[in-house]
């Protein structure tokens, strides 16, 4: 047999070398940080941070899917080994799991005054991080629908996605169970914040039929983007900011928050165990909680900004964006956006395993 993987602050001690090493390794999802329009290799806010602090940041976009990334780093974290990253960005539920396993380092609120000041109230004191010292939100976002107008007409509902014959084989859904099932639950008129096993099963059954009929090409992480842009995928479930970014280049690519409801999530920054630049990480998190910086990021990534005061800053950058509900949600959208309910461990396992079986792996 094998032993469990849980760690505690005592069993796994991390050393902070920030004093001697001016480096920081930051792993994030693709399309989650501003890029210079002129030069794709430049990231303005990050470069500003580097020149301001002298900390050399290695930024990698190597997180594509929560489960996939967790599978990759799990053995090391379980063994209390460094994973070669100082900050990782994981979705709320996955952050909760990592924190539960004792794999995240506690941060020092004193060194993150901006966070303390500017974190949106709705994101404070969450169940898995009561004191806001383990998981600091990077961005929030919506999971909804997207389509490429060059290859298909408008898509408005989840059901269209799952059944419209002209889309057959050119639809991708998200491998993120909470997003895909959440959207279907809502399309079925159920509430993802509170649903029953039977409702889950019904949603899954619907999904299964769609898969079996050949409607669904793939289940993706963030990797729907290139194919959607290309047109090999006509329509898909997608994350808001990504699609809005694509729209900027090709306006016929559109994001749709279905009338039945979209899924709301937050992606949080964590400092994993044995990461050796915690102080730098704290500095970076604090930096990105300056409203002006946050607005600059939001103006590029088009996700929901977790920083209070950023909307005001946005007025100065791009007034249109400041009123875009997908970035600064209005009440109407807020009403249509649901979080996925927190699951007990068994329920989570049962759902994941059923879901995974359907998505084919």
């Amino acid at each position, binding site marked *: 047999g094998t032993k*469990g993987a849980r760690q505690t602050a005592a069993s796994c001690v991390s050393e902070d070398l920030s004093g001697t090493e001016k480096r920081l390794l930051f792993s994030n999802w693709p399309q989650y940080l501003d890029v210079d329009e002129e030069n794709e290799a430049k990231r303005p806010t990050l470069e500003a941070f580097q020149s301001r602090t002298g900390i050399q940041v290695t930024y990698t976009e190597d997180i594509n899917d929560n489960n996939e990334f967790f599978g990759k780093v799990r053995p090391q974290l379980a063994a209390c080994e460094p994973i070669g990253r100082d900050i990782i960005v994981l979705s709320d539920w996955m952050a909760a799991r990592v924190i539960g396993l004792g794999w995240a380092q506690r941060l020092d609120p004193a060194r993150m005054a901006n966070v303390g000041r500017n974190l949106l109230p709705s994101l404070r004191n969450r169940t898995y991080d009561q004191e806001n010292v383990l998981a600091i939100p990077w961005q929030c976002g919506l999971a909804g629908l997207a389509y490429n107008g060059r290859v298909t007409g408008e898509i408005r509902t989840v059901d269209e996605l799952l059944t419209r014959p002209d889309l057959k084989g050119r639809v991708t859904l998200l491998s993120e169970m909470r997003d895909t099932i959440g959207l279907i639950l809502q399309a079925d008129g159920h509430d993802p914040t509170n649903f029953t096993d039977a409702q889950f099963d019904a949603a899954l059954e619907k999904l299964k039929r769609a898969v079996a009929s050949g409607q669904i090409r793939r289940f993706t992480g963030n990797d729907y983007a290139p194919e959607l842009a290309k047109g090999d995928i006509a329509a898909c479930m997608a994350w808001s900011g990504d699609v809005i970014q694509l729209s900027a280049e090709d306006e016929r690519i559109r994001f749709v928050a279905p009338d039945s409801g979209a899924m709301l999530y937050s992606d949080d920054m964590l400092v994993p165990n044995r990461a050796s630049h915690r102080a730098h990480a704290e500095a970076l998190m604090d930096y990105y909680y300056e409203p002006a910086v946050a607005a600059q990021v939001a103006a590029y990534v088009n996700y929901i900004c977790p920083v209070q005061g950023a909307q005001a800053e946005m007025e100065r950058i791009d007034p249109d964006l400041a009123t875009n509900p997908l970035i600064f949600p209005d009440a109407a959208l807020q009403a249509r956006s649901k979080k996925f309910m927190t699951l007990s461990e068994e329920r989570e396992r049962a759902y994941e395993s059923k879901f995974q079986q359907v998505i084919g792996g």
Partner: protein
Amino acid sequence: MTASRSGRRRRLLPYLLAAPGALWLVVFFLLPAIQLGATSLYDPAGSLTSGYAMTWSFGNYPDAIGAYWVHFGRSFGYAGLATALALLLGYPLAYAIALRAGRWQNLLLVCVVAPMFTSFLVRTLAWKTVLSDTGTLVGLLRDLHLLAPDGRLLASPVAVVTSLTYGYLPFMVLPIYASLQRLDRRLLEAARDLNARPAQVFRTVTLPLSLPGVVAGTLLTFIPAAGDYISAELLGTPNEYMIGNVIDAAFLVRLDYPQGAALSVVLLLVILALAVGYLRRGGAEEVG
């Protein structure tokens, strides 16, 4: 030097030569295989988080097979198809290189091998470009009405089998080439002289004498193809997923080690059974 001392040293020599490599394979191949077997019998209720207990849960096997027999079937089906295609394509190529290429032989041979240096992934992705719904090939096929107007190649069994065939084609070509290269050409002339038409020469002499290469080639193609999941992952849909995709997900996404291990063990056993049965019938000398 006394005779006996040097004699003992000489008797020991083969063991000294074989030991490091054999040891490596024992520790990093045999032992892991045994551990895999053990893992497949762990309590399926465990998890990596809570740890696994060894409960000799043989039930993992029927459970795993019950849930994924379709994927097994598909794997062997696709791999069989890809192997047959690779044989069909690889044989003429090997034949031409070995017997007809003359001074181009070296260059052609190198052309068969060199793509292996361009990563398999990169090449598979290139297939994705070639077969893309918006690509020239699909456009052409649609224009020729060989493909329905909304028909596609990507995300279909065609794409997966194409890529599998492609990926393991060199492993088919090389052994066949080697056995054809060894073939005594005078035998071909003898057959022609004995009133055999070209097709008969091939059927009665060339083919039977290259059989060892064919056997080695089919094994070297079929086995990895049956375990492949890159092709299905990149070019297929969940309806094309093979057992490799399932095992990959079991170990890396679902983190269900017992089930993943059970699936791996079944895959290995089925392949061994097929290979042994095949070798019995094919009567091949040696793989590789």
